[in-house]
């Protein structure tokens, strides 16, 4: 019960939260190197938790039509197309008459248009719904094109050769120090005996503070319902000794559920194995108990920088700075009080004078 209660490594999260005789901490290890992007996790989660559909819109982000985690999507599979290859993969397009990579085209079409939506595209299901204006107005033109480009037209030094398609299933991180949980004023968010973080739907009054408290942009308030929603790591299933729905469904075991200590060991072994195989860019994300959130209960093996997957590179639980913030606030309050007292005292002095 001492130390690192609000930040830093903390071994016994559940115990710290007052759970005596609690089971071991559990979590997810998501090995994105074997993710096939099937989205079974998204669907299995929704079926089990009766999470509503999050919008039937096409987002144009490769095969990602979910966009992000949110109130109505507790698992989100990211798809990233990149002009490079992974580890021992051969360059897929070597020797083809390719031009420059077009992977930028998607982001160019998607990113700028997100900003005009109300919350900048951070809510689910927002994206460029309509065809780009300039183009949809194109008349249907008769194309007197020659059928084939001449050989070499599209070749050259700039030709793309390497390609890889990263897929990764994102989920609530169930942080050791959870920003959402810390700021929740009702106790709706709580640390379970399994060390996970869950919103109690019978308590939440939808203040929305947790939405801003989360350094990963995971939790969100569900429109029309008004309550905050996120992955519960299938709290009900855990009570029954079952693994969470997403991990159970995952066809390639990209999503692994288990005791966190064991998962961390497994992840370390997997990382070493990939490094041995020449996949040098593999790295673990959220595994480190020394990070800004004390390590994640759900952590990942990634093949690129976290931000490429839409993850913050160095998240910090805001609570870490709470003491200093309160000190500053205290000073400001003191100044305020002093000003108040001073005002009347000075007025009194002035009046006497």
């Amino acid at each position: 019960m001492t130390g690192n209660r609000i930040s830093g490594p903390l071994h016994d999260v559940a115990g710290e939260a007052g759970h005596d005789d609690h089971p071991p901490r559990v979590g997810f290890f998501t090995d994105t190197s074997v993710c096939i992007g099937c989205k079974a996790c998204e669907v299995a989660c929704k079926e089990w938790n009766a999470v509503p559909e999050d919008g039937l819109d096409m987002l144009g982000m490769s095969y990602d039509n979910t966009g992000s985690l949110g109130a109505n999507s507790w698992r989100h599979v990211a798809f990233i197309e990149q002009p490079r290859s992974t580890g021992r993969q051969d360059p897929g397009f070597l020797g083809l008459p390719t031009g420059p990579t077009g992977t930028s085209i998607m982001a160019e079409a998607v990113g700028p248009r997100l900003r005009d939506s109300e919350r900048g595209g951070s809510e689910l299901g927002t994206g460029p719904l309509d065809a780009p204006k300039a183009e949809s107005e194109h008349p249907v033109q008769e194309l007197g094109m020659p059928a084939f480009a001449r050989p070499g037209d599209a070749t050259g030094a700039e030709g793309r050769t390497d390609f890889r398609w990263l897929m990764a299933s994102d989920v609530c991180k169930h942080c050791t120090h959870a920003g959402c949980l810390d700021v929740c004023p009702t106790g709706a968010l709580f640390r379970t005996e399994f060390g996970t973080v869950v919103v109690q739907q019978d308590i939440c009054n939808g203040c929305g503070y947790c939405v801003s408290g989360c350094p990963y942009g995971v939790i969100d308030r569900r429109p029309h319902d008004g309550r905050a929603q996120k992955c519960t790591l299938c709290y009900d299933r855990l009570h029954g000794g079952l693994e969470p729905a997403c991990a159970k469904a995952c066809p390639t075991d990209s999503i692994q559920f288990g005791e966190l200590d064991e998962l961390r060991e497994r992840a370390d072994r997997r990382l070493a194995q990939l490094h041995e195989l020449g996949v040098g860019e593999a790295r673990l994300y959220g595994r480190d108990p020394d990070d800004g959130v004390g390590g994640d209960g759900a952590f990942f093996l990634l093949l690129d920088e976290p931000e490429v997957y839409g993850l913050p590179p160095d998240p910090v639980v805001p609570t870490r700075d709470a003491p200093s913030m309160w000190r500053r606030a205290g000073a400001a309050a003191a100044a305020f009080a002093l000003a108040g007292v001073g005002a009347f005292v000075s007025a009194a002095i002035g009046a006497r004078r």
Partner: protein
Amino acid sequence: MTEREGTSHSDTERVGEAAAQAENRDIDQRVAPPAEPPEQSSEEGSIGREAQLFQGSGLGRRRRRGGRGRGEPTVVPDAEFRSYYGRPVLKAPVWEWKIAAYLFAGGLAAGSSVVAAGADLTGRPALRRAGWLGSFAALLASLYFLVSDLGRPERFHHMLRVLKPTSPMSVGTWILSVFGPGVGAAAVRELVPRRWRRTWPARLLDRLARPLGLSAAVTAPGVASYTAVLLSHTAVPGWNEVRDELPFVFAGSAAASGGGFGMLCAPVEEAAPARVFAAVGAAGELLAAKRMEQRMGLIGEVYRHGKVHRLRRASEVLTLAGLAGTVLVAGRSRSGAAASGLALLAGSALQRFGVFEAGMESTKDPRYVVVPQRERLAAREARAAVAPPDPG
């Protein structure tokens, strides 16, 4: 690029293989060039910039949009920044304008209560009456804003289920629940019609009002400043990054608005303390805000552009004008006092809306999340490079 890749391996030591690390760098170096869009040259202009976007920059947009708010050159080189299709990393706060209004109303309630309590103690009945009534009205308004912004307003009372030191909103709720009754009692006493004053409840109220009011005034500094922590204690870059100055900005703003309200409602002769309070508050707010702007890194962009910039510039002008008016004319002219008070009130309100909006804006572009964190990591790595990690 290599360096950046390296930093991401915060656990390379854990891997424990220098060789593996070298290999990583090797690989990264090899694959890096194609990852960079070929057209870096300036002639490609916006296209080249947009090309960055596929690794996700929101910069192109910022530049264009920034045009409205006179875009200054950015500090961070583009190539450093990648994101997921330019999608935000964080969720924009779900809070609406009501929360900004709450910030203002809460500050006003706190400021006014201090003015009222002081007036009570120093025998300034008009100022006292105005103060308590203003404080109470602001308090009611703030409660309305707060509750109606809830997803489930009928569950407002769940706020009192727990007392969480880690939750500024919980702390604030409990502060308000001490502050509120005092203000209420004092204000209600001001409202008791003359003909009821002799009844025993009125007499009881009369007796209790002062201590209760004073208790409210004692908690008022907390009410005035906790809202800054409320905003800063989030992952929202536009709020979190300004955590050191924001309490002073908000406390000053609360004082300015409380004093300003006193100036607006009370006769000049009674309002001297209100003027001082307002002036000190306004000055403090302006100084703190200036300091805040100077210290901000990349996040400063959101404060310097667009709607946020306009709101806060207007706030600054109004507060400055109010301050000048307070010092120069409010002691002599009732209308001058009223105008100054109004200017301060408006300035305070706009400050809150501006800061609120800055937070909203800062979540919409992943750059504000990623770049500072990257810099932090780079700095950490640099430190680590200087002082090799403890082998333990």
